[in-house]
């Protein structure tokens, strides 16, 4: 500091930012999305509680669609590669993403996993998120749609208790409906009502991976997401660079 004029004195400056704290994640997600769209791959962010039936839904999807539709998956898990192994067995090429203690996938984890995986040839890439009804909803991954699996045993009021997750759902798949006869206190209409109070465009699809109920509607919904894709000459696009 200079004693004559005060030059060199530090000064307190307010810097206006007004930007999303997760802007870095948003940029990576936009990058992922651009790649998915260019290669006409429909990326689905599949979320839900642990045990909601996310992996079983994908196994049933593969059984139903057979070899005509190319499915792939990134399977997020805190530990183990069990989900990815189950999916591989069901005929869905998969890459496990072990998050350690992280409760969610972020766009960067998805981006890194894509480097190990021939995802460009797929029709659908399922991103099976970490089983958790809170954190995964906050991170954009570059997906075309959010699907939340909610099992009938989780109770009628789950959407009201976890509005952040259910607000972001383009589709809620109500799983394990084969158990409904054993659950006299669970009414599908009440779940539908709860969803309509947290999501402005609520879509609820009751489904049983065991009996096959709802699977036709589920694959029709998937097909409708494919119809949104713009045709694009794949050879015009450079491969995803590390």
């Amino acid at each position: 500091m200079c004693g004559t004029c005060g030059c060199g004195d530090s000064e307190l400056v307010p810097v206006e930012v007004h930007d999303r704290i997760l802007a870095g994640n948003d940029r990576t997600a936009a990058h992922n999305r651009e790649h998915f769209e260019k290669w006409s791959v429909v990326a689905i962010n599949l979320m839900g509680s642990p045990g909601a039936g996310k992996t079983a839904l994908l196994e049933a999807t593969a059984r139903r669609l057979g070899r005509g539709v190319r499915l792939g998956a990134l399977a997020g898990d805190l530990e183990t590669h069990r989900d990815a192994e189950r999916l591989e067995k069901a005929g869905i090429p998969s890459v496990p993403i072990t998050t350690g203690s992280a409760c969610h996938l972020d766009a960067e984890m998805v981006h890194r996993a894509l480097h190990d995986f021939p995802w460009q040839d797929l029709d659908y890439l399922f991103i099976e998120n970490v089983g958790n009804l809170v954190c995964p909803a906050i991170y954009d991954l570059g997906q075309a749609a959010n699907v939340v699996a909610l099992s009938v045993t989780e109770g009628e009021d789950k959407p009201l208790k976890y509005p952040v997750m259910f607000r972001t759902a383009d589709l809620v798949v109500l799983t394990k409906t084969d158990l409904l006869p054993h659950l006299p206190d669970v009414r599908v209409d009440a779940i539908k009502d709860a969803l309509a109070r947290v999501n402005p465009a609520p879509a609820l699809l009751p489904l049983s991976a065991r009996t096959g109920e709802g699977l036709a509607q589920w694959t029709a919904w998937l097909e409708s997401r494919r119809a949104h894709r713009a045709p694009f000459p794949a050879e015009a696009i450079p491969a995803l660079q590390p």
Partner: protein
Amino acid sequence: MHEYSIVGALIGRIEELAQERRANAVHGVFVSIGELSGVEPELLATAYTTFRERTICERANLTILRVAARWNCPECRQEIPRGAILECARCGVPARLAAGDEIVLERVEMEVA
């Protein structure tokens, strides 16, 4: 507990801003957190206190502005009451979220030489 990863991104961003402006220190950090953002202000504050050590934010206070969720009709702008079905009773169109999903860094007060 994603609040730690959010604080990581927050401090990373502030370090960039401080570097750009050649700041010596940061005195205040102001963020907006919406009711429907999925971020718990208390957990965020705790994570911040833990995380800021040995960063440029070491002595910077964090001020969290909480933003309530507000839904309204995109056509007639009628507010949708809390807990109601998210559809405009008059226009029959889906409501839109007018406020409440913010996870925003609003302002940083830094000391510049």
